[in-house]
């Protein structure tokens, strides 16, 4: 069963074609990595799926609903959560509030102005649980904008996974982390997305080969291959376009 299907998705910015006909089928429960050189359009593809950008052409189907050109909040409510390559948090809110806000919709609070948040024991416990998972429990009351970089990345991840969405999309979740921090983060991602679908953009090949069930290679706005890690590694087209140097050096 596929959870997400892209059919000939295109995106132009003015005259430049950034995404040039991407078709992709993500299966329910799979861990899918998208790799490709800088500027290939990986983040743009994420933005198209999550509703930040409108598509120029093509369709995107999520769980049976057409979601292309829908606003991000409607897509999020269908069960798609994402993180950003550039940290995108609520800087003057504390860490706890950041995560709790991310939990509100999925816990059915909507735009309520008749629930007092302090009294929502279950919600607050869930929030603390997420904080524990991302290792920020003792920073709960700290202004998130003043966290160290790696901690902000952890929070970025926490906001994305908090709602327990069916499909989680992470755009370079461990970029800029030290080796041990990245290891922890990957462990966390694996644990949290268990039984869920994950799409991840990542440059670090060891992580990609470690986590992913399947890999898509995006080059110049086109997917040149989608396959298992072994086959991707062996694919001459991929090696030529992108992987060659990385595989030999790794």
């Amino acid at each position, binding site marked *: 069963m596929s959870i997400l299907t892209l059919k000939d998705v295109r995106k132009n910015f003015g005259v430049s074609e950034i995404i040039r006909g991407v078709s992709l089928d993500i299966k329910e429960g799979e861990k899918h990595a998208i790799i490709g050189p800088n500027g290939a359009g990986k983040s743009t593809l994420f933005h198209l799926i999550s509703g930040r950008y409108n598509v120029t052409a093509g369709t995107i189907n999520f769980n049976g609903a057409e979601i292309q050109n829908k606003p991000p909040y409607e897509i999020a409510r269908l069960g798609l959560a994402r993180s950003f390559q550039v940290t*995108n948090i609520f800087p003057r809110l504390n860490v706890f509030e950041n995560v709790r806000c991310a939990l509100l919709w999925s816990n059915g609070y909507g735009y309520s102005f008749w*629930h007092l948040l302090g009294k929502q024991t279950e919600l607050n416990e869930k929030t603390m649980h997420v904080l524990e998972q991302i290792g920020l429990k003792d920073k709960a009351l700290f202004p998130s904008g003043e966290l160290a970089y790696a901690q902000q990345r952890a929070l970025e991840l926490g906001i994305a996974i908090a709602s327990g969405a069916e499909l989680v999309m992470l755009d370079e979740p461990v970029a800029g982390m030290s080796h041990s921090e990245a290891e922890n983060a990957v462990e966390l991602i694996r644990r949290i997305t268990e039984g869920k679908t994950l799409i991840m953009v990542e440059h670090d090949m060891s992580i990609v080969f470690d986590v992913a069930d399947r890999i898509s290679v995006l080059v110049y706005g086109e997917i040149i291959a989608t396959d298992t890690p072994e086959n991707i590694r062996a694919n001459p087209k991929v090696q030529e376009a992108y992987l060659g140097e990385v595989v030999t050096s790794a």
Partner: protein
Amino acid sequence: MGMIKKLSVWIGYLIVLLALPQFFDSILAISIFNQMAIAIVFSLSYNMLLGQGGMLSFGHAVYFGLGGFLAVHALILIEFETVYFSILFIPLIGGVIGLLAAIFIGSFSTRKAGTIFAMISLGIGELIAATSLIFTDFFGGEAGISGDRTFGPLFFGVDFAQDLEIYYLAAIWVFIATVFMYLFTQTPAGRMANAVRENPERAEFIGYSARRVRFISFCASGLFAGIAGGLFALNYEFITEENLNAITSGRVLLMAYIGGLGYFIGPIIGAVILTLMNSLLSNYSELWMLYLGIMFILTVMFLPRGFAGFIMMHQTAWLRGNLKQLALPYLISGIPAFLFSMTCVAMIEMMQTEEQSFSFFGMQLATDAALTWIVAITIAVAAFYATRRSLPQLRDAWESANAIPASEKTES
């Protein structure tokens, strides 16, 4: 904060509101308290927009004014026995009108925050103010409209003819409005307003339409501004176009800003300070608006978090028990700074007055004598110099009062 502690803050607030007239019972004091009551509700409602929701409005008086106009019309209807209900509920009428106006205007103005929102609010403000002068039957033109609050059923024999009686009525409304505005900040809608202020884009990726979140805050803000307008109608029994135009919109912005946008009590502090300045200073000087403007500029420059922020700055020193260390340095810098400001005020007033002799704090100053000016300038320069000289000491005292004791240093 513990439940008990929170509750005692609220009870304290209620007691202060109700007890104030026991301590200051002159006609002037009561009239100032009534103005404060109105200003507190109005500026708290404004902060729902700017402080909590990140929406800079230049037209908040629209909701205050429309609420007030309808409230005066309600008083007229009660007077002519078209309707029969107690004037206790007049602020509610103002609130409903404020809410309806906000629903209508907010439906398009909250699409974006930032400059676009600010410009729309300015435009709507001008539009409504100009329109109100055209429809003279309803708005009464330049003169406004007036009513009489003493009609309708009595409340336990009280007819609200006295300002003091209105004060108690207003105090109850202020308390209720403050409680509800505070509670709003603790709800999902209120908290998401902060999130949208901080990062509207990310809010959309966690399931919230930034526009809808803004719209809800906007409506709540209109409701409470209308309640403030209703209190205004009860207190003054008349209302004019000035109460919904840019002057009033500007004043509420100043109040909230000077008080401190980042704190719930900031606008209360701002309302108290500005009402006091407005009613006391304006008795002494025609230039009080100038002083107000200077105060605003100084606040923006030196106290970007307002008076509430200034008070909260001392939390660390207070928790460490070091507040006393600051008292003397504050005096040493404060006295010359105060002297400098007062001398400047004296010179400004001497320039403005046409009299030859001018009374300043009981001193008779000859405005055209060179000696007066020489003395004033000398004092100003000396006081300025003394302030400057004392500042490094103040800074040192500040740092030592806030310093982390060696015992705590191991962490982080």
